[in-house]
């Protein structure tokens, strides 16, 4: 009974999901000519969408899949961005060399943030604690002037990729697309395997998960670490995109934007994270740029989603296209 054969099973991957998998590769292919069609500003917006993909993916992993109310995402984002900035300014590294360190710093922050969760801190206690951590990090950015430039922020030198200067938004697009794809593919792999199942099991019933032999502590740390890694990379992309880091960019407002992405997209859904990142980044562009108007619209948007579409746009997609059903979208 134990140890199966190495034969691939017949009926495991239903034909529809294979179609979905192949359709997936169509998307980046179709996107390749995009820079030729958009002006610099429009391209900038698209690049911002791509930047938010790993951020939303990382956030959704902890809140949606693992089921823990961790509001620390913005802290990882800021840490990733500032790591890039500091390494470029102080150590003179080119941007592309800071991507992995930014991810790693995010991962370390993620693991650190998972400590209270390991000690049993849950629900809104965890939310408040991670919120406080995020604000503490912001205070660090403001106070640690020699390194972070304080409230005035730090200007990030021009980014390049392996020597190719990313002087146009179009060039950034290709690098960002590749990074976003890598994060999505890697996370998808995690979610489709025993790791993803373990996260969902822990979310559903932690006690039972342990009874299946899952070392829940290790998996919680892993989830937070991977989340931090992904979001940290997003932070590196932010530094390259915006070019200037200020502490105010990493406050509760940013948290709400990121929350909006995963809620509108669909909690626990990888496809939802991508949809959310795209939609929420696009939304402010549709509205006028009066101070406060964006916030108002965001707030109302989230309220409407919570009332009428609690499982996000991904659930709509799943309903419209049963063959395209993202298996990690949960009702």
């Amino acid at each position, binding site marked *: 009974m134990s140890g199966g054969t190495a034969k691939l099973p017949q009926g495991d991957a239903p034909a529809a999901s294979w179609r979905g998998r192949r359709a997936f590769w169509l998307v980046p292919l179709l996107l390749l000519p995009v820079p030729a069609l958009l002006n610099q500003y429009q391209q900038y917006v698209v690049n911002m969408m791509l930047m938010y993909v790993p951020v939303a993916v990382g956030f959704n992993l902890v809140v949606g899949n693992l089921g823990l*109310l961790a509001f620390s995402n913005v802290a990882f984002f800021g840490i990733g961005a500032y790591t890039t900035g500091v390494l470029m300014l102080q150590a003179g590294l080119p941007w592309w060399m800071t991507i992995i360190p930014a991810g790693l710093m995010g991962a370390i922050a993620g693991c650190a943030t998972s400590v*209270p969760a390991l000690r049993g801190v849950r*629900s809104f206690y965890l939310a408040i604690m991670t*919120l*406080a951590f995020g604000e503490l990090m912001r205070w660090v950015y403001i106070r640690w002037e020699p390194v972070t430039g304080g409230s005035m922020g730090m200007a990030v030198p021009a980014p390049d990729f392996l020597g190719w200067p990313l002087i146009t938004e179009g060039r950034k697009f290709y690098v960002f697309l590749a990074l976003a794809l890598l994060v999505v593919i890697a996370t998808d792999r995690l979610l489709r395997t025993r790791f993803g199942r373990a996260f969902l099991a822990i979310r559903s019933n932690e006690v039972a998960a342990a009874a299946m032999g899952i070392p829940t502590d290790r998996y919680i740390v892993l989830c937070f670490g991977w989340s931090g890694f992904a979001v940290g990379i997003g932070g590196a992309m932010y530094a390259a995109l915006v070019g200037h880091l200020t502490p105010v960019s990493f406050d509760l407002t940013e948290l*709400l934007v990121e*929350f909006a992405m995963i809620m509108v997209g669909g909690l626990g859904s990888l496809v939802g994270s991508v949809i959310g990142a795209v939609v929420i980044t696009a939304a402010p562009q549709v509205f006028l740029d009066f101070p406060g108007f964006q916030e108002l619209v*965001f*707030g109302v948007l989230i309220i409407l989603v919570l009332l009428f579409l609690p499982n996000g746009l991904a659930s709509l997609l799943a309903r419209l296209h049963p063959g395209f059903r993202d298996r990690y979208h949960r009702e």
Partner: protein
Amino acid sequence: MLAQLVVSGVAAGMLYALVALSMTVVYRATTVVNFGHGDMVAAGAYAVLVFAVGLGMPFAAALALATAVLFLFGVLLQRVLLQPIIAGPHLSLAMMVLAVGFTLRGAERLEWGNEVINLARPYPRGVFMLGSVVVTMDDVVITGCVLALLLVLFVVFHVTPIGRIIQAVFQTERGAALVGINVRAFHAVMWGAGAALGAIGGVLLALIVPLTPDMGQWVLLQGFAAMTIGGFGSLYGALVGGVLLGMMQNVLGFYVGTVFIDITAYLVIILVLLIRPNGLFGRQSTVRV
């Protein structure tokens, strides 16, 4: 010097206590943690701005009206936005109130931009001496108002029939429903009460701090810190926690470093929740997850 720090800390602490109390009331009544509360406090301040400065009403009337408006706001919030999703995951409720707070902030920013507004004090500025300790008129007014409010709440809670209903529902919601108390209406009213108390806190805050649309963010964390020290769910804890927070900020800020004025709240939250999550008076309540 220590005495001075403690005394001025108490006044600030009273404010935090009021904010924490208003959040605790809502939490006890409905088990929801209001992440948008800071913005409701700010909204109270802005409401007074509108009534007193914009419409030229006398301050006391403006305060009363602002409180009433926020009360209504709280009731409507619960009825229209929270009740429909009450059976869902806790995250949705937290997000909903966060989004509401955010919306309030957006509206405020739309109207007043990012300018910093100072509310004129409706009382003369002054300074008293208690021995060698300086006590400002602000300290007196704030502390006096909060104490008066606490007295009123105490009386309502312990003496009036409404207070008994509140006590009953706090103890056992199911039992209260079984004896015919309209729990739904209760929830709505308690949200209203929480918002109203928050509004009063906002007004008091506006006396000493300039109004900006983002002030709610800071208030929220202070309120959380106070609740954490005192123990989530404990009304007395909210009071004690708030006052202790005020004192700690001042004392640490002077003796250890001015950084602590900003970060005491954050450190308190992280350390207390890690080491002694129940705070001083907290109870092991079942948390809706």
